[in-house]
């Protein structure tokens, strides 16, 4: 159950602000909301079916499982701004943050291909135009940016 949700129009942008329980079962609902906003602005089919759902799922999953350490007392905030130029989503957890560059690895090398983990950040980078991590005002923030293709 989403703890709080707000959607508003700001100029030519749609802005979503959500706070969800620290539970992986919350992920699909968030993805659907963001995807619908992108669909309303006629983002490309592949962006709606692949780039947005997979990259956002990865970011949320990392926030819930790693950033918040699966702690059910914590929450994850999502701030998404969608307009005709780009989608910018920030996923904010209550964790200590991490070194994005240090955590990036190539899971396609022969020694890693058979691994069961290590593809999340890789997919985020491949499917989004930009992935950033920083310590925001209110927590560890991962920002995903995707330029709209029609």
């Amino acid at each position, binding site marked *: 159950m989403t703890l709080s949700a707000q959607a508003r129009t700001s100029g030519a942008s749609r802005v979503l602000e959500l706070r969800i329980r620290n539970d992986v079962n919350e992920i*699909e609902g968030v993805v659907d909301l963001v995807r619908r906003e992108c669909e309303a602005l006629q983002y490309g089919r*592949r962006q709606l079916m692949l780039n947005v759902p*997979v990259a956002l*799922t990865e970011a949320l*999953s990392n926030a819930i*499982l790693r950033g918040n350490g699966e702690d059910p007392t914590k929450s994850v905030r999502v701030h998404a701004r969608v307009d005709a130029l780009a989608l910018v989503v920030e996923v904010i957890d209550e964790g200590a943050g991490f070194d994005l560059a240090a955590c990036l690895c190539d899971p396609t090398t022969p020694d890693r291909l058979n691994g*069961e983990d290590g*593809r999340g950040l890789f997919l985020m980078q491949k*499917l989004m135009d930009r992935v950033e991590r920083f310590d925001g005002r209110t927590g560890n923030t991962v920002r995903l940016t995707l330029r709209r293709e029609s």
Partner: protein
Amino acid sequence: MSFSIKKQDGVVVVEVDGQLIVGNRQELKQKMLEELEKGGRKFLIDFAKTGYIDSSGLGVLVSLSKKIREAGGELRLANLNDDLKTLFELTKLDTLFQIAETRERALQSF
């Protein structure tokens, strides 16, 4: 996600309906391992009704592939749409799995 398991031509056919992601991939793994325990050795996962897969879902497929192979079995994947194919190509998992265009071709390949 929901999935169905049935036997067809001696093959355990699993259909994944919906997303295969962090919240539900353990259920798929558990059910398939149960079939392996019961003696199933030929497995086909049909993605015709699958939306998207995240890295956890891909990880479960890799894990299942290993376990099935260790038990002397075989795993095929079928009916990946273009977006799922892209996912497998990006991660080079298309080189790890035997992927067929259709269920029929996958069944014939055993």
